[in-house]
């Protein structure tokens, strides 16, 4: 049996490769970056919501099952550049360091994930212009290293604002969907900071809090135990205040129905999830239908979210829409099982 090609080394791809190996199949794991672990690794995610378990632990668990596993061949810095049907599988061309290489695979799992929204596109927030306006993925790294400091002067911030739904639920940037993660991750960050630095004030600007399911607990605790403040309204613009020393966040407190202007030492943008570059490229290469949002559309998304509709081609993780790590890991397992069934037939 030829190996099953897994495209993408984030949580979904790692989970799929690990699962294939445990089923006794061979996996060929291709990752375009030079490391495994996807976005959580790239941005040094700190604790993962909602259990506040370190990301390294969660990823480490997956990596342990893949790295050094004789049934998993890992190819870093490699992309899939061509594909031809070779029933029951495919013939693919890989482009790595040493030039094109053809491989026969028995099935393919696309786990190409998402990209964080580029917050510079919301020019009114001044991201990229004002050093103390951060993207929340950058704050993850700071929290991880316990160095929550203002990039402008290296001093600890006294008051921090989180702006939710940046590049999500926003027709002006063409992204009307919800990122699913921004709320819970921001609240988690606020809790982490308030735990370690109770002297720092934390304000979350929100339209709706979408800590769906059991994550609601974190939202409640953030208020009850950690004194995180919530203001209903989306910040409309960030400017400089106090001679450029602080940031001025302007918006409406929509519960009090008044415009607000509050100075902050640091503003954190909860940037949304967009279909990853890899997702777009693979959708083209495999002629897969994408929805208006640009994510790949599974054939029957409600009862079989991992099935692409093309025999032998399966989907996992954020390639099909914004997704949390546990969901991506589960889909990786599901896709692995389907690919295994196909390859064995």
């Amino acid at each position, binding site marked *: 049996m030829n190996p099953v090609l897994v495209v993408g080394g984030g949580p979904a791809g790692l989970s799929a490769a690990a699962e294939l190996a445990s089923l006794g199949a061979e996996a060929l794991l291709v990752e375009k970056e030079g490391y495994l672990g996807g976005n959580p690794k790239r941005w040094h995610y700190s604790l993962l919501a909602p259990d506040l378990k370190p990301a390294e632990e969660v990823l480490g668990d997956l990596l342990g099952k893949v790295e050094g596993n004789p049934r998993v061949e890992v190819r870093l810095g490699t992309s899939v550049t061509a594909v031809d049907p070779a029933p029951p599988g495919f013939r693919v061309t890989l482009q790595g360091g040493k030039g094109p290489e053809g491989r026969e695979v028995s099935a393919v799992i696309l786990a190409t994930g998402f990209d964080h929204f580029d917050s510079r596109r919301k020019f009114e927030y001044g991201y990229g212009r004002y050093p103390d306006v951060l993207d929340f993925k950058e704050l993850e790294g700071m929290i991880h290293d316990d160095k929550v400091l203002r990039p402008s002067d290296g001093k600890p911030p006294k008051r921090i604002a989180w702006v939710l739904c940046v590049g999500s639920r926003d*027709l002006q940037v063409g992204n009307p969907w919800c990122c699913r993660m921004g709320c819970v991750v921001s609240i988690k960050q606020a809790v982490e900071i308030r735990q370690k630095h109770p002297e720092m004030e934390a304000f979350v600007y929100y*339209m709706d809090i979408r800590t769906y399911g059991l994550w609601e607990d974190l939202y409640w605790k953030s208020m009850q135990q950690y004194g995180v403040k919530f203001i209903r309204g*989306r*910040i*409309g613009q960030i400017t400089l205040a106090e001679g450029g020393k602080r940031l001025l966040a302007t*918006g409406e*407190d*929509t519960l009090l*129905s008044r*415009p607000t202007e509050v100075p902050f030492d640091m503003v954190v943008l909860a940037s949304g999830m967009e279909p990853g570059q890899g997702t777009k490229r693979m959708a083209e290469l495999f002629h897969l239908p994408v929805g208006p949002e640009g994510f790949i559309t599974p054939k029957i998304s409600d009862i079989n979210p991992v099935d692409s509709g093309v025999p032998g081609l399966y989907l996992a993780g954020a390639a099909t829409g914004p997704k949390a790590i546990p969901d991506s890991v589960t889909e990786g397992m599901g896709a692995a099982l389907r690919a295994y069934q196909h390859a064995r037939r």
Partner: protein
Amino acid sequence: MSVVAHLPHRSLSLTEEEAAQPPSMELTGRRRMSPADRGLSQTLYEEFHQDPRYHEYVLGCLNCGECTTGCPAARFYDFSPREMLQIAATGDATTLWDALQEKIWSCCQCYTCNMRCRFGNDIAGIISVMRELSVRHGLEATRKTLAPFGRSLTLLMTVGTQVSADMIQPDFFRDWGPFATGSDQVWGVSPEVMRKAIPLDVLQTTRSSWEVSVQTSLELFRIYEETGVLDMLRGLDPDLTEMLVDIIEERREEFREAREKYRDELITMKGPVASFEG
């Protein structure tokens, strides 16, 4: 009395007639209105929702408040474009009625809210639909609210503008707040630089920009007549309307005389100039 009148949230002294009004999706605890006002409010509500622009302008709302963020009126009045959108979307005729009394006139129609809205609503547009409604029905409150603006209205109706370039100064627009024309932070450039962008010959033109050609005035008036604006205004302020008609009659006369005088030249002119005679 009907059962509805006995519901706990209502005033028990509703009249039979009041209680019999077709219910929209009413909010609880509303105050009493005269049967005439209640009837009119229902008419306004229905007319508003039947306006073909309604569904084009009001799409839905996340209540994010970004429209309010940039709204100059929200800084100075108890008013916000988000609230206006909510009022436009509400099923409660009384709420719409209340807004039509005064609130709708807080807006300066700058359209900033539209540019901000992430949902694609035309908030400034729906506010102007509300204004039309209140003018068309000659609401008492609208009459009172607009009474002090006779001069602006006269200029707008006869000349087409009431602001000239040299009026863009903080002193003329105190209600824009201290930063509106004085700050680099708001505009990104200083007012001096902005003024350089205005062609010299239109600066310092408080007088000349109000001296439009007689054809322009007549064309404007023709538009107001044809589109029903004049009739709308007549319902609201018959005196002002008569005054405007007088002014424009004078202009028409002026035009007729000029035509008489320069008849020979006019005959050689091409185009629809003569048709603005009215």
